[in-house]
C-alpha cells in the first residue's frame, strides 16, 4: 500500500497535517498542564506536551534536538518533576484552590502577550529566510559542537555537575532535623 502524496479528502500535504496535529496536542497538553486541578495529572500532561514538541523538532528537520528532547525532557526532567510532586504532596489531598488570586490578571496579561507575539510575527520582516525547512546534518552539528562550541559545551558540563551537587545539597535532609519527608 502506497501512501498518497496528499492527505485524502482534505487535500493537504502530510507535513501540514502532522504539524496541525502536533501543534494541537502541544497546546492542548500545555493548557491542561497549567489549568489542571490535579498536580499529578499536570505532570503527566507535561510529558505529553514535551513529546509533541519532540515531534515538532523532527518536523523542523532537527532530529538530534528531537531525540535530546525525548531523552532530557520526557525522560529525565519529567520524572524528576513527578518525583518532586510525590514528595511534596501533603496528606490533605489535592488542594481546592489551584489558582492564585491574581489569576485573571495573569490571564489577561498572557493573552495580551500572545496578541503582541502575533503582531510581532505578522509585522516582522525576517530576512534571508528559506521557503523550505533546512535539515540539520548531524555530522556537521557534531563537528561544530566539538570544535567551535567546545568551550561552551564543557562549560555546560561543569554547570550540570554543579547543579547536581547543588540539588543534592539542597534537598538533603539536615542530620539534626527529623520529620517525615
Amino acid at each position: 500500500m502506497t501512501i498518497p502524496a496528499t492527505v485524502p479528502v482534505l487535500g493537504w500535504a502530510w507535513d501540514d497535517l502532522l504539524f496541525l496535529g502536533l501543534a494541537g496536542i502541544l497546546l492542548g497538553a500545555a493548557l491542561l498542564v497549567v489549568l489542571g486541578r490535579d498536580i499529578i495529572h499536570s505532570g503527566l500532561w507535561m510529558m505529553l506536551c514535551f513529546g509533541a514538541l519532540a515531534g515538532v523538532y523532527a518536523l523542523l528537520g532537527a532530529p538530534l534536538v528531537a531525540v535530546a528532547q525525548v531523552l532530557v525532557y520526557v525522560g529525565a526532567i519529567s520524572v524528576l518533576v513527578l518525583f518532586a510532586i510525590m514528595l511534596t504532596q501533603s496528606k490533605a489531598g489535592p488542594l481546592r484552590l489551584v489558582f492564585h488570586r491574581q489569576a485573571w490578571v495573569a490571564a489577561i496579561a498572557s493573552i495580551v502577550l500572545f496578541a503582541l507575539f502575533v503582531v510581532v510575527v505578522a509585522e516582522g520582516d525576517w530576512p534571508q529566510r528559506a521557503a523550505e525547512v533546512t535539515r540539520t546534518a548531524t555530522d556537521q552539528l557534531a563537528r561544530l559542537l566539538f570544535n567551535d562550541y567546545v568551550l561552551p559545551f564543557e562549560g555546560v558540563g561543569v554547570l550540570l555537575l554543579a547543579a547536581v551537587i547543588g540539588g543534592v545539597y539542597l534537598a538533603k535532609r539536615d542530620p539534626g532535623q527529623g520529620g517525615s519527608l
Partner: protein
Amino acid sequence: METLVTLLLALPIAGFGATALVGRRLGRQAFWLPVGAIVTAWAVGMVVAFSALTGQPPFTGEHGQGFGFSLYRWIPAGDFTVDLGLYVDNLTAALLIVVCTVGMLVHVYSIGYMEHDPGYWRFFAYLNLFMFSMLLLVLADNFLVLFVAWELVGLCSYLLIGFWYKRRSAALAAKKAFIVNRVGDLGFSLGIFAVWTTVGTLNFQDAFRGLDQKIAAGALEPWMVTGIALLIFTGAVGKSAQFPLHVWLPDAMEGPTPVSALIHAATMVNAGVYMVARANPIFAQAPEAMVVVAGVGIFTAILAASIAFTQNDIKRVLAYSTLSQLGYMFAGLGVGAFTAAIFHLVTHGFFKGLLFLGSGSVIHAVHEEQDMRKMGGLARRIPWTYATMLVGSLAMAGIPPLAGFFSKDEILGSAFRNGFLVVWAVGFVVAGMSAFYMFRMMGLTFWGESRVDPHVAAKIHESPWSMRVPLVLLAAATVVIGALLGWPLEGGTIHAWLDPLFEPARELLGLEHEAFGGLDVALVLASVAMATLGLAGAVRLFGAGAGRFRWPARLADRDALVASVPGARFLYRASVNKWWFDDLYHLLFVVIGGRAGAALRWFDERIVDGSVNGIATVTVAAGRGLRVIQTGRVQNYAMGIALGLVALTLAYLAGLFR
C-alpha cells in the same frame, strides 16, 4: 635672626604649654616657668627690635627694608598659598619694644598681685598664651596670620576678662567683649577677602605693591580701595574699641588688673592702630577712608573723655581714658600722622600700663575696693604707688617733659598742619579734659580726706616688691621715653625709625614734612596751657597734695559750676550713664534683635523645618501606602515583570507604527 624671631614666638607658647600641663601641680611656684619664658623673650625681643632699628644685617640699609621669612607653607591650595611668614621692620620693632617690655613687667607684677588667687597657674598660662598671640600679631607678614593672631588675642582677652568666671558680671563682660569683637572681625575678614580677590595675595608687601600697581593701571575703582580700607578699619574699630564698638572695653575691667594693664591698655587694644598703620599703603590710596578714621577716632576721644569725668570706679576711669587715647591714635592715623600715632601708641603703652598697674596696687592696698568714693588720702600710706601714679597721670595729662606730652602734641600738631582743624580743635579740648579727669582720679584716690572703710583702713599696706619694681621701671620709662624718642619735636628718633616706612603714604596723600616752626611752638604752648588748665581745674574742685602742701577740695565751687553751666545736670547724667550707649544697644540688639530672632526662629521652625518635616511626612505616608504592594510573594513580583514586559512591548510597537 630667623632663630631669634622664631624663639621669640616659641618661648611664650612653650611657657603656655608647660604651665597649662604641669602648672596645677606647682601651686605657688607656678610663676617660674612662664615668667622665666617671658623675661627671656623680652631679652630676645629687645635684641631683635634694636637690630632692626639700627639697621643691622639682615635688616638691609639704614632704617630701611624689613626682614621677612617663612616658617613653612601653611596653606598650599593651588593659586591660594599662605605661608606662616614672619616679618620684622621698624614698625614691628617699635611694637616689640612695647609688647615685650610691658608684657614682661606685667608678668613680674602678677607674681605678687595674683598671689592669693586659686587660679594662679591658669592666669600665667593665659598670659603666656596672650604674649604668644600678641607677638604673632605684630610679627605676621600676611593678613591671614595676622587674623589668626587677631582672633587668638581676642580669645585670650575673653579668657582673662572672664578669669573670675564664678562672678556673673565677669562672665558677662567676657561674653560682651567677645561678641562685640566679632562684629569688627566680620568686617575685617571681609576686608581680607576683598584684598585676596583684588590682588590675589595676602602677603602684606605683595598685596600693597599689587594694589598700587592695580590702581596705577586703572584696574581698580577708587571706591573699591575705599571699601577695602573701611572694612579693614572695621576690624580695628572692634579690637581697639572705637565708637560705635567701644562698649566692651570698660566692661572688660572685670578682669584682673594686670590683664587690664597688659591687654586692655598697652597691647591688644593697640592692635587696631598697628594694623591700620601696617595697612597705610591701602589707606593712603583712600583719602575718604582716612577722613572716616580721623572722625571716628576724634569722636571716640571726646566721647570717652566726657564719660571718664564722672566714673567712680578707678579702673573705669582708666578704661575710658584708654578709649580716649586710642581715639587720639586713630585721629593721628586719619590725619596722616602715622609716625605720631605709633609714637603715641608706644608712650601710651608705657604710661597707661603704669597707671593700670598702679591702680591695681591701690586696689590691692584697700582690699579689692575699686570705688574711688571709698578711697582718698592714700598718698602717704602707699608712697611708691602714689609717686609712680603721679608720674603716669602727669604723662597722661600731657605735661612736659613726660611721655604723653610729646606724642599727643605731635598728633595735634599734625592735625592742625594737615588741615584737619576740627580734629585739632576737638583734640585740643580733649587734652584739657584728659588732664582734668586724671587729676580728679588722683584727687579722689590719693589726696583729701580718707573715706576708706575703717576696718580696712588699718590694714592698708604697700604692695610687695614684685609689684613695686615694675611700677618704678615703668615710671622711669614714662619719664624718659618721650624725650628719648620724641626730642627734638617732629624730628626725634622715632621719626628716624618710622618716617621712611610711611614716606610713600605721605607722598600719596600730598603731605609735606615741615620743619618745626613758630606755629608749632604756639600750638605746643596752647595745648600745654589747656592741659594745665584742666589739671588746675581738677585740683581746685577735688583737692590736691598731702601733708602741709595741700589744696583742699572746694565743694562750693563744684556746686557753683554746676549752677552756672546751662544743662550741667543733663551733661552729668549723660556722662554717668555713658551717653546711654549700653541702654541703646540693649534696646537695639537685645530687645529688638531678640524679637527679630524670635520671629526668625518661628520662621525657621514653622516654614523651613516645616517644609522639611512635611517632605518627611509625605515620604513616610507614601511608604506606608506603597508597603501594601510589597507582599513578599514571588508571583506578585513576577506579575510586575510580565506587565512591564507587556508595557515595554506596547511602547516599542507604538514607536514602530507611528
